[in-house]
């Protein structure tokens, strides 16, 4: 099917987005796999209606965040509430140990945020402006600004507590 191959090709190019969302929202590797699968299927179902009015990456972010936020978690496996696995940070090729520590602490702080706040942080890290973030989240840019200020304060306090 030409539609299927174009979809697979686009997802192949943008799959980093899905990986990032899964990594931010799920701690358990199996949960990440399940979420990846759910995002793929959700995107595939709505792909026929994708008219290219927005960038594919923006559209995929919307689908991925929606799926992650409303994802049903099996009781045995919980959403990320603890720090990200330490190995992840160690595996990263950072020269500076201070940078590694800073990243670990910041990840721990982000892990304490709510699912909605995590979505905002994700979009902020991707350099979306407040207008675009507002559109994706369904809130006004002013609201995004207020929320981002609160999130930054929360993170600052959490970082202090963790460090």
């Amino acid at each position, binding site marked *: 099917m030409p539609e*299927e191959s174009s979809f*697979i*090709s686009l997802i*192949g190019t943008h*799959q*980093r987005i899905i*990986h990032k969302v899964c*990594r*931010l929202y799920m701690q358990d590797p199996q949960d990440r796999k*399940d979420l*990846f*699968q*759910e995002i*793929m*299927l*959700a995107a*595939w*179902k*709505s792909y*026929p*209606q994708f008219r290219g009015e927005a960038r594919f990456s923006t*559209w995929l972010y*919307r689908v991925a*965040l*929606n*799926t992650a*936020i*409303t994802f*049903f978690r099996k009781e045995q496996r919980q959403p990320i509430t603890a720090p990200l696995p330490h190995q*992840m940070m160690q*595996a*990263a*090729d950072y020269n500076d140990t201070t*940078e590694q520590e*800073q*990243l670990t*602490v*910041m*990840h721990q702080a982000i892990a304490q945020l*709510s699912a*909605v*706040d995590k*979505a905002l*942080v994700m979009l*902020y*890290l*991707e350099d979306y402006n407040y207008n675009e973030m507002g*559109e*994706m*989240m*369904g*809130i006004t840019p002013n*609201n995004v600004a*207020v*929320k981002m200020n609160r*999130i*930054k304060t929360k*993170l*600052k306090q959490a970082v202090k507590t963790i*460090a």
Partner: protein
Amino acid sequence: MELDDIKTLMNGALEQEMELRSSASLQDMLGKQTQSVIQRIKRSIWFELSAFILFALGAVACWLLYHRLLVHLFCMATWVLCIAFSAYLLLLHRRINFYEQFPAPVKENIQQVIDIVTRFTKLYAAISLGMLPVIYCFGLLIGYVELSSNGLLQQFAWSEGMLYAGIAFIVGWSVFIFFISKWYIRKLYGHYLLQLQQQLKDIENG
């Protein structure tokens, strides 16, 4: 240390160690079944629609077997209930399809999921309770018709105690089913709904 200070590093860290998937592996995923709550509801809708078709067919069989006005009235009541519930289920199914095809912004998306799950749970409770009286009345009516047509009703030794025991059983059983259904719905969707409502609150307060 603030988020802005390590924004670039954070981005890099999230991309580290990503096991990028091949096109074949991505394609393979499209054939698998989703585990989402919405999909589970969709599957339940098909199951319940099949159950209503069976109920309606059962009512057709009763209509043809028993030529009594009361039986025919109950058959008609069953059809009306089956048609009403099925129409509602089909509308809900259509709503889910729309939800799946047009991804809304996060806030609206959460509201839509809450709405779909709430509608489904309410319908589930209504079906459990709405169909109960029909089933009991059907059972009693068919029993009465069978016994009276065989002349066994006159030989049956009725007592007031038996009547009360029968009524108590029906009421007790209905109450039991009501609470079991409520517990089951809460177990399946209660915690999930609470989570979604909390997320909606998070996004609205700001």
